[in-house]
């Protein structure tokens, strides 16, 4: 049962919160720390930090919704799910989300505020109701659910109309749908995402951690108009799911009308000209450019008229152009001052490694040491953070490339895995990379010497040392002459090396062997009358590792 206590928490490696008040304990297990949080009396415990090495346990009233998360090695943050929900159970007495607009869109007044309304319910009168900031709450168990005092002098208070947790519904195109519907629209049971039966597919949960491909639930990992799933019916590879649209309006973004911050996904201005001066094509039109970026497919991305937009994580707002010769182009939307300068050449000619602590590293690595993909520096999904190009203009925080903006000991990045906040990158320090030739000879991955033919056709035929134990299939000499069978006496008579005289030397058929431990390697008698014997050409296993080139490729990404 002890591990059940963790069921109520969401875990994030490498995360840390600095917040007072807090309580500190020493515990033996993470479950013990969870119990401390559950039983915390001095404040509402919403998360705890657990450092396994030191067996430290820190309980906190804060979580990633209310406070900034920091980076820290070997620390793990556990947040109570109930305090992360953005929906209400029942009348929402325990709703602790961060919605702060009433149902008619009025901004809520801060609970400890006194203007424009003098509240009679305050954090002092209701200390246990977590009346924080201006978030909607239901301290007096109102039947209509969470509410707030509004900043509209004419409207003292209003309900907030927050989505019901039990209501299975989706917003926009359902890209953030996390529900449990698992049948497709014509009633087929969905195939599990971690299964390749009955349908082979490339939506591997471990490779796409930020898509939440759980069990066999309907999901939308690839920009379809709504969630879908592979079906358990061999004749129907995949099908859309029927998921009702939420009654509450989608999460509001703060529209940017005059400039674009980060990638510009919140830009809703009216610029409709590209950087080279071409007029943008209307998003609803399919000419001259046929495309799939329609407002049906991307309902919450503001694809109206022919305005520049960024519906799909491009690096800045763009549009299809009315010039048949130019499909699409970025637009000249002014940046709100937080994006790095124009794209410099990213891959320096030299090796992919870093000098010193890597703060000068400007290479193209975007994978962590454990193989996770890096999160874009301008993105706040899945990890909200402060290492943005605006805050670190000199750190070249470009795309999702590994960097070291804060003087850590090596390049790192936030990961696209929601449960692992950050990791160091898959890079070596330049001064401890041995000679490239040696670096390839990792003994553990050396191709093993070819064992007898029947059992190892796929093994690459090679020899170790002088090949005295070589039992591979090569039966031609260096010059390409076919070998004479060891048991044969034509065209060359010989008595020294036959299966009878050397039964343990593997003198089968006419395959190259080294029965006399010749320093130069396996040989054979040849079928060429003018040449009694010759060496064979058998590669050294040492150099035969597949897929690991001695010269590291550039790996220039075709963007």
């Amino acid at each position, binding site marked *: 049962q002890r591990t059940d206590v963790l069921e109520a928490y969401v875990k994030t490696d490498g995360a840390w919160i600095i917040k007072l008040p807090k309580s500190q304990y020493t515990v033996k297990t993470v479950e013990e720390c969870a119990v401390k949080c559950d039983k915390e009396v001095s404040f509402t415990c919403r998360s705890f930090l657990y450092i396994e090495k030191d067996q430290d346990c820190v309980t906190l009233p804060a979580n990633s919704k209310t406070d900034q998360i920091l980076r820290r090695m070997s620390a793990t943050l556990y947040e109570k799910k109930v305090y992360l929900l953005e929906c209400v159970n029942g009348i929402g007495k325990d709703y602790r989300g961060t919605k702060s607009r009433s149902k008619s869109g009025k901004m809520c007044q801060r609970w400890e505020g006194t203007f424009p309304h003098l509240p009679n319910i305050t954090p002092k009168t209701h200390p246990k109701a977590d009346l924080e900031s201006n978030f909607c709450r239901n301290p007096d168990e109102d039947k209509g659910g969470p509410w707030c005092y509004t900043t509209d002098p004419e409207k003292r208070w209003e309900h907030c109309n927050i989505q019901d947790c039990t209501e299975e519904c989706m917003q926009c195109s359902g890209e953030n749908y996390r529900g449990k519907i698992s049948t497709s629209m014509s009633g087929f049971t969905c195939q599990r995402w971690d299964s390749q039966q009955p349908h082979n597919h*490339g939506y591997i949960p471990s490779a796409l951690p930020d898509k939440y491909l759980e069990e066999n639930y309907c999901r939308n990992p690839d920009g379809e108009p709504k969630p879908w799933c592979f079906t358990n019916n061999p004749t129907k590879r995949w099908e859309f799911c029927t998921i009702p649209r939420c009654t509450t309006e989608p999460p509001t973004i703060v529209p940017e009308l005059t400039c674009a911050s980060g990638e510009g996904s919140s830009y809703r201005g009216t610029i409709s000209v590209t950087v080279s001066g071409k007029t943008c094509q209307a998003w609803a039109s399919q000419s001259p450019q046929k495309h799939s970026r329609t407002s049906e497919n991307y309902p919450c991305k503001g694809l109206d008229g022919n305005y520049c937009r960024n519906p799909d994580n491009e690096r800045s707002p763009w549009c299809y152009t009315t010039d048949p010769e130019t499909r699409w182009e970025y637009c000249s939307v002014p940046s709100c001052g937080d994006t790095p300068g124009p794209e410099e050449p990213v891959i320096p000619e030299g090796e992919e490694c870093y000098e010193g602590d890597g703060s000068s590293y400007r290479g193209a690595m975007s994978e962590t040491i454990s193989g996770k993909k890096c999160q874009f520096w301008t993105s706040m999904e899945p990890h909200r953070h402060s290492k943005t190009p605006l805050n670190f203009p000199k750190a070249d925080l470009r795309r999702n490339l590994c960097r070291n903006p804060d003087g850590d000991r090596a390049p790192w990045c936030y990961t696209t895995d929601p449960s692992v906040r950050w990791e160091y990158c898959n890079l070596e320090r330049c001064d401890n990379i041995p000679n490239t030739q040696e670096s390839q000879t990792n003994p553990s991955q050396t191709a093993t010497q070819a064992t007898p033919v029947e059992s190892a056709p796929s093994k690459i*035929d*090679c020899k170790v040392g002088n090949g005295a134990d070589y039992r591979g299939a090569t039966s031609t000499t260096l010059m*390409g002459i076919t070998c004479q069978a060891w048991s044969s006496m034509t065209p060359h008579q010989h008595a020294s090396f036959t299966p009878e005289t050397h039964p343990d030397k593997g003198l089968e058929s006419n395959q190259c062997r080294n029965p006399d431990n010749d320093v130069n390697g396996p040989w054979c008698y040849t079928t060429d009358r003018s040449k009694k014997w010759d060496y064979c050409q058998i590669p050294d296993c040492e150099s*035969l590792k597949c897929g690991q*080139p001695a010269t590291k490729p550039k790996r220039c990404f075709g*963007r």
Partner: protein
Amino acid sequence: IVGGCISKPHSWPWQISLRTRSRIHFCGGTLIDAQWVLTAAHCLERSDSPSAYKVLLGIHTEKANEPSKQERDVVKIIKGPASTDIALLKLDRPALINDKVSPACLPEKDYIVPSNTECYVTGWGETQGSGGEGYLKETGFPVIENKVCNRPSFLNGRVKDHEMCAGNIEGGTDSCQGDSGGPLVCYAQNTFVLQGVTSWGLGCANAMKPGVYTRVSKFVDWIERSMKQN
């Protein structure tokens, strides 16, 4: 290769150039064993006779005047199952494996490359004026799951289960004529694994028309059985 860049010499040591008897490059291929090359079946339509072909290994330029060049004749052609674009070539004698010539790894049987995985295609094929003519070029892009690739606005159901797509949805970079038969390799745990054989496309580098590659993991049994029997 359209777009992309010129490779570092010999940084894709499994890349081979398939040539006519008069040594004209017309297709690519991948060294998967000292004496075996994997290529596309449609590259072998010009002749069923092995002697019509030559294989060059260890080269960087199309001129192929590098000292590391190894030249082999083809002694056997083994075409893949019907209506699949894959074939094996047996060389007259093993290639000399060294730091400029070494095989790519074969994938696990039936392995499906996860959507969005970063893969690379190489070749001396058509560049459509994007530079690098005559040099081995490379470009990298993500794998596009067959479900997306078979959308009406993409390749509209043309891609079979034993094929896979890779490319940039907005076009601009791709493999092209003359790259056929060459490798599509994907990087995982510090190793490049051969996942695709360059097969076909609707034009080259067009938006929403990714390149299509024969999915090697569906042919691992066939490859190993053919090499063993021959």
